[in-house]
């Protein structure tokens, strides 16, 4: 942000950190109480662990659903919260949280790594096991090359022009980047531990044609050593299946070993973490900072179970307290969705 530039601030009643099943259901519970929400998730897709880790696998303990898949649950939740028009900000990580208000009238300024700024009366942390981040291979000294020569994602393709790039992995990310960067790169070497690829067949075929044409290289093996100076890579050593070592000159290394969950910036928000979890009370699932709530897998309290159904309950109770902050003068009366005409109006079913 350069000086003099005016930041555009997105104002919202509630900001939800994490679009996993619990963040999604929070939209519903908040929506019934006329509280509008924006959600931020570092993943490019909605659904947290359910859609990232086990979209096709069955879940057996969602009340009322003897069997539903991870993705099926997320799709249903999306349908359920549609009437409340939640605003999603995907592919962005919430990095900063600043307290502006008072304990009685909380107000928070929240920033993402993409530079978006929100002002919210309540923040619901539904961050699960933390933000999904790329796995880092255990190659000695790899962190010294990160940023300059080792990349887990590419934000600006142009920066890769004319480079000798080594891409490691056998899935869609590895193959997509191979295809995308091929026209720009000086040379591409794809390294994978076996001569079988999980990626879409058409990208694998394209890659194989280029290899046959000697337009790029494919090495079967694993990267064991990096060579270079001052954070600038000059070569990588690949160990073949037979144990032979190949030194490949390269300026950039892009490893794709999937994602793992890391707590990330939440650790810096003064929430008194306990074993990387956010302590919350069990009446309203508020943290030690009034106006900041923790729901789902990210929170801890006596008796906590990391189950989706627990997260749903937590979201419902948190919403009641959020209402007090958003509408300090309004009284809440308890209502059923089955019989309340006002709730049904909100759901668009009356």
């Amino acid at each position, binding site marked *: 942000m350069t000086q003099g530039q005016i930041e555009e601030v997105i104002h919202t009643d509630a900001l939800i950190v994490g679009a996993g099943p619990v963040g999604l259901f929070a939209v519903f519970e908040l929506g019934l109480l006329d509280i509008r929400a924006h959600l931020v998730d570092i993943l490019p897709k909605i659904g947290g662990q359910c859609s990232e880790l*086990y979209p096709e696998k069955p879940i057996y303990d969602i009340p009322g659903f003897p069997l539903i898949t991870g993705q099926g649950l997320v799709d249903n939740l999306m349908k359920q919260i549609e009437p409340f028009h939640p605003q999603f900000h995907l592919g962005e990580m919430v990095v900063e949280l600043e307290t502006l208000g008072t304990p009685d009238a909380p107000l928070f300024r929240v920033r993402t790594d993409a530079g978006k700024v929100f002002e919210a009366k309540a923040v619901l942390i539904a961050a699960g096991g933390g933000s999904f981040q790329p796995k880092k291979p*255990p190659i000695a000294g790899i962190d010294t090359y990160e940023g300059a020569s080792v990349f887990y994602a590419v934000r600006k393709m142009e920066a890769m022009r004319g480079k000798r790039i080594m891409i490691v992995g056998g899935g869609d990310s590895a193959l997509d980047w191979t295809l995308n960067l091929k026209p720009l790169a000086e040379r591409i070497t794809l390294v994978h531990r*076996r001569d079988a690829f999980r990626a879409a067949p058409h990208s694998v075929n394209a890659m194989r044609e280029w290899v046959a044409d000697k337009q790029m290289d494919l090495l079967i093996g694993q990267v064991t050593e990096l060579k270079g100076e001052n954070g600038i890579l000059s070569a990588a050593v690949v160990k073949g299946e037979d144990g032979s070592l190949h030194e490949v000159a390269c300026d950039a290394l892009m490893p794709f070993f999937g994602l793992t*969950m890391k707590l990330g910036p939440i650790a810096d928000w003064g929430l008194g973490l306990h074993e990387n979890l956010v302590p919350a009370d069990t009446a309203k699932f508020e943290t030690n900072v009034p106006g900041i709530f923790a729901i789902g897998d990210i929170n801890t309290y006596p008796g906590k179970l990391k189950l989706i159904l627990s997260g749903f309950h937590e979201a419902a109770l948190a919403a009641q307290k959020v209402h007090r902050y958003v509408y300090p003068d309004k009284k809440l009366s308890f209502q059923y969705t089955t019989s309340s005409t006002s709730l049904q109006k909100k759901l668009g079913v009356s």
Partner: protein
Amino acid sequence: MVQITYTDAKGTARTVNGEVGSTVMETAIKNSIPGIDAECGGACSCATCHVYVDEAFLPLVGAPEQAEEDMLDFAFDVRKNSRLSCQIKVTEALEGLRVTTPTKQG
């Protein structure tokens, strides 16, 4: 009960009893064996339960199925005897099974 020995990357061995029908990963978690994270709880979707199976037991343990082989792409320093321990069922035949955990899981 079937005896299983887990050796960590530094060479420390721990022998515990595994229940027939459970998995080598579950047995490790139940006995607080270090070096196995099992982030996904055995769903073959995280590759943080990676182990090296002692050569002598390889024929008994068998080869990984396609889904496990694919998931092994996400593990580090994969070798010929690499397996995901959540996909190895404990059977009587595996009595005395020895596995080694890698230097890094996730």
